[in-house]
C-alpha cells in the first residue's frame, strides 16, 4: 500500500461522494413533512427497505471488522457472523410486526402507545440516545482511523469530513436520502465482496475442501485456526457475547426505525426476508474474505496496517485485484461508514426532537413546520455531540464500543419491548424500571470490566484488577433488565387491562381507523 492516493482511488471516492450528493438533492425535494423526514413517508417497498436494513447492519464493523477477525482468529471471528444473522429471527418473530402496528417514528412511540406517560417516553429516548452515541462514536473512530490510513490525512480531519457528509445527507435529505444511500451502498458492498470472494475461491481452485486443507498450514496457529478457541477461551464470556449479538439487534434504534419506513406489517415482514438473505450471504462470504486475507496477505502485514485487523479486506483486495479493486473496496468502505452514521444521526434526532422536544416539552402541540425544523436542529445536535466525542475517543477500541451498544440495546430496550407487547400485567412503573435497570447495569458492568481495567499499565484506560472477568456483560445485564421490569411492575398496583386489550388487538390485526371507515 502506498501513501499517496492513486488516480483510481480519487476517482472512486469522488464518484461516491458525488452520487450520494445527487441523491440528497433529489431527496430534499421530497422531504417536507416530519413523516418524510423520519420515515421517508412510510413509502419504501419491501426490497428497498430490506436492502436499507442490510445496509444499516453491514457497518464498517461488519465489513472490515469481521473480515479482520476471521483473518486473525479463524473460526472465533466467524462467531460474529453467526450471531448477527440469527439475530434477525428475533427481530422477525418477536419485534417487527407489533412494532410496525403500534409505533409511528420511534421506539418510545410504541411503548407509549400503551403507557401514555412522559416519564416512559423520556426514559426510552434516553436509552435510545445512549445507544446511538456509543454506536456512533465507534463508527466515527473507526472511520477516522480508516480514512487516515487510506488517504494519509490527520485523524481529526477525517472525522470532520465524515461528520460533515453525514450531517449533509440527514439535514437535507432526511430518511429518503439516508435510505437510498444505504441501498446503493449495500449493492456496492455486495458487489465488492462477491468479486473478492470469487478471486479467493479461484486461488483455491474453486474447492472448499482445498481451501480448508491449505488453511490448516497457512497460519502460525496450524489446525487450531479452523476451530474455536483462538481468541475466546473463557466459555462464559463467549456465551455472554453471543447473547449480546443475538438479542441486541432487536433493540438497536436505527434498525427498529426501519420498520416505520414501510406502509404495513406485511411489507415490514418482506423487508426482513430480503435483509436476511442479503446479510446471510454476506456473512458466509466473510469466511472467504478472512481466510483469503490470512493466506494471501498474511497475519503480519494485516497487523502492521492495523492492530485490530480492520485493513484485512482492503489489503486482500489489493493482493488479488491490484490498485483498481483496492481503490474500489476502500471507497465502498467509506460509503459504508457514511451511510451507517447517517442512519444513526436520524434515529438519535428522532428521540431528541420528536420524543423529548415535540412530545414531552411541547406535549404534542407542535405544527408540521416546527416538527421538521426541530428534527433538523436535533440532527445537527446529535452530529456535533458525536463528532466531539469521537475526536476525544481516538484511542478507544472500536469493537468494544460496538459490543457495548449491542449489550445496552439488548438489556435496556428488548425487555421493555417484549413486556409491552406480550405481558398483560405490565405497567408504567415496570416500563421505567425495565429500561433503567438494563441501561444502568450494562453501563456499570462494563465500567468495572476488563475493557477498562487492566493490572498492566497501558493495556487499558485504568490500571487495576477488573471486578468482573466478562468483556461483555449481557449474560448478567439482559436478565437484570427483565427482572427490573418484573419487580417494578409488581411493586406498582397500576394495571390497565382495557388498554392492553387495545394494544393486543392493534398489534395482532394492524387495525386502524382507515380499516373500518370504508
Amino acid at each position, binding site marked *: 500500500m502506498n501513501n499517496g492516493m492513486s488516480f483510481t482511488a480519487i476517482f472512486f471516492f469522488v464518484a461516491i461522494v458525488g452520487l450520494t450528493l445527487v441523491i440528497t438533492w433529489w431527496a430534499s425535494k421530497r422531504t417536507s413533512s416530519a413523516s418524510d423526514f423520519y420515515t421517508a413517508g412510510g413509502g419504501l417497498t419491501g426490497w428497498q427497505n430490506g436492502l436499507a436494513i442490510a445496509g444499516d447492519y453491514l457497518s464498517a464493523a461488519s465489513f472490515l471488522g469481521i473480515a479482520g477477525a476471521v483473518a486473525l482468529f479463524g473460526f472465533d471471528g466467524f462467531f460474529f457472523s453467526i450471531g448477527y*444473522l440469527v439475530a434477525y429471527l428475533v427481530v422477525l418473530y418477536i419485534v417487527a410486526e407489533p412494532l410496525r402496528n403500534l409505533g409511528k417514528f420511534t421506539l418510545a412511540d410504541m411503548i407509549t402507545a400503551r403507557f401514555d406517560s412522559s416519564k416512559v417516553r423520556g426514559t426510552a429516548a434516553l436509552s435510545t440516545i445512549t445507544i446511538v452515541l456509543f454506536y456512533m462514536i465507534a463508527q466515527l473512530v473507526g472511520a477516522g482511523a480508516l480514512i487516515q490510513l487510506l488517504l494519509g490525512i490527520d485523524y481529526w480531519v477525517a472525522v470532520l469530513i465524515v461528520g460533515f457528509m453525514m450531517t449533509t445527507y440527514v439535514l437535507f435529505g432526511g430518511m429518503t436520502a439516508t435510505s437510498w444511500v444505504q441501498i446503493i451502498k449495500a449493492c456496492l458492498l455486495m458487489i465488492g465482496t462477491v468479486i473478492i470472494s470469487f478471486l479467493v475461491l479461484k486461488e483455491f481452485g474453486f474447492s472448499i475442501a482445498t481451501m480448508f486443507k491449505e488453511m490448516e498450514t497457512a497460519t502460525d496457529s496450524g489446525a487450531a485456526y*479452523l*476451530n474455536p478457541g483462538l481468541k475466546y477461551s473463557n466459555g462464559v464470556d463467549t456465551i455472554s457475547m453471543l447473547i449480546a449479538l443475538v438479542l441486541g439487534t432487536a433493540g438497536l434504534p436505527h434498525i427498529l426505525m426501519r420498520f416505520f419506513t414501510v406502509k404495513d406489517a406485511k411489507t415490514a415482514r418482506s423487508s426482513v426476508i430480503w435483509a436476511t438473505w442479503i446479510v446471510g450471504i454476506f456473512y458466509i462470504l466473510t469466511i472467504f474474505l478472512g481466510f483469503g486475507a490470512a493466506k494471501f496477505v498474511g497475519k503480519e502485514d494485516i497487523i502492521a496496517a492495523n492492530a485490530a485487523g480492520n485493513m484485512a479486506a482492503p489489503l486482500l483486495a489489493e493482493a488479488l485485484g491490484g490498485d483498481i479493486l483496492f481503490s474500489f473496496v476502500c471507497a465502498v468502505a467509506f460509503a459504508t461508514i457514511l451511510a451507517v452514521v447517517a442512519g444513526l444521526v436520524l434515529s438519535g434526532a428522532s428521540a431528541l426532537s420528536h420524543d423529548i422536544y415535540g412530545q414531552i416539552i411541547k406535549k404534542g402541540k407542535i405544527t408540521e413546520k416546527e416538527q421538521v425544523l426541530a428534527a433538523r436542529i436535533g440532527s445537527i445536535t446529535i452530529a456535533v455531540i458525536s463528532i466531539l466525542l469521537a475526536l476525544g475517543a481516538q484511542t478507544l477500541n472500536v469493537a468494544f464500543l460496538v459490543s457495548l451498544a449491542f449489550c445496552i440495546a439488548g438489556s435496556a430496550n428488548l425487555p421493555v419491548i417484549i413486556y409491552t407487547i406480550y405481558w398483560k400485567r405490565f405497567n408504567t412503573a415496570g416500563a421505567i424500571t425495565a429500561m433503567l435497570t438494563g441501561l444502568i447495569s450494562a453501563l456499570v458492568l462494563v465500567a468495572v470490566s476488563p475493557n477498562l481495567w487492566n493490572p498492566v499499565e497501558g493495556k487499558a484506560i485504568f490500571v487495576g484488577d477488573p471486578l468482573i472477568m466478562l468483556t461483555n456483560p449481557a449474560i448478567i445485564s439482559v436478565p437484570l433488565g427483565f427482572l427490573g421490569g418484573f419487580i417494578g411492575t409488581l411493586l406498582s398496583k397500576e394495571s390497565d387491562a382495557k388498554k392492553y386489550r387495545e394494544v*393486543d388487538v392493534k398489534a395482532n390485526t394492524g387495525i*386502524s*381507523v382507515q380499516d373500518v371507515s370504508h
Partner: protein
Amino acid sequence: MGKNQGNKGIMIDYDAIANQESFKALVRKKKSFLWSMTVFFLAAYMLLPILTSFTKVLHQKAFGEITWVWVYSAGLFIMTWCLCHLYVAKANSFDKEAKAIIAEYENGGGSR
C-alpha cells in the same frame, strides 16, 4: 397515532374485538407458534458456544479438513433462512384470519 386517534368520529371498540372468540383463537395460535419457534432457534444457537466452550465434540473433523463446528454453523444459516420463510407462510395465513376478524367486527358491532 395522529390520524388513527378517531378524530373522524369513528371509534374502534377494541374490547369488542378482543372478546371475539376468533380473535382469542388467533392470538393463542400466534403466541404458541412464535414462542415455541423462538425457544427452538435460540436453543439451537446457544448450543453452539456451549458445545465449543465446554466440549470438544465439534472440534472433530467431519469432511476432509472441515470440522463439525463449520457444519453446525452452516446448519444455523440454513435454519435462519428456512425459519424466515416458514414465518412468512404462517404470517400470511394469520393475516387472512385477522382480516376475517375485522370483517366480523364490522358486520357485528361496527354500526354502533
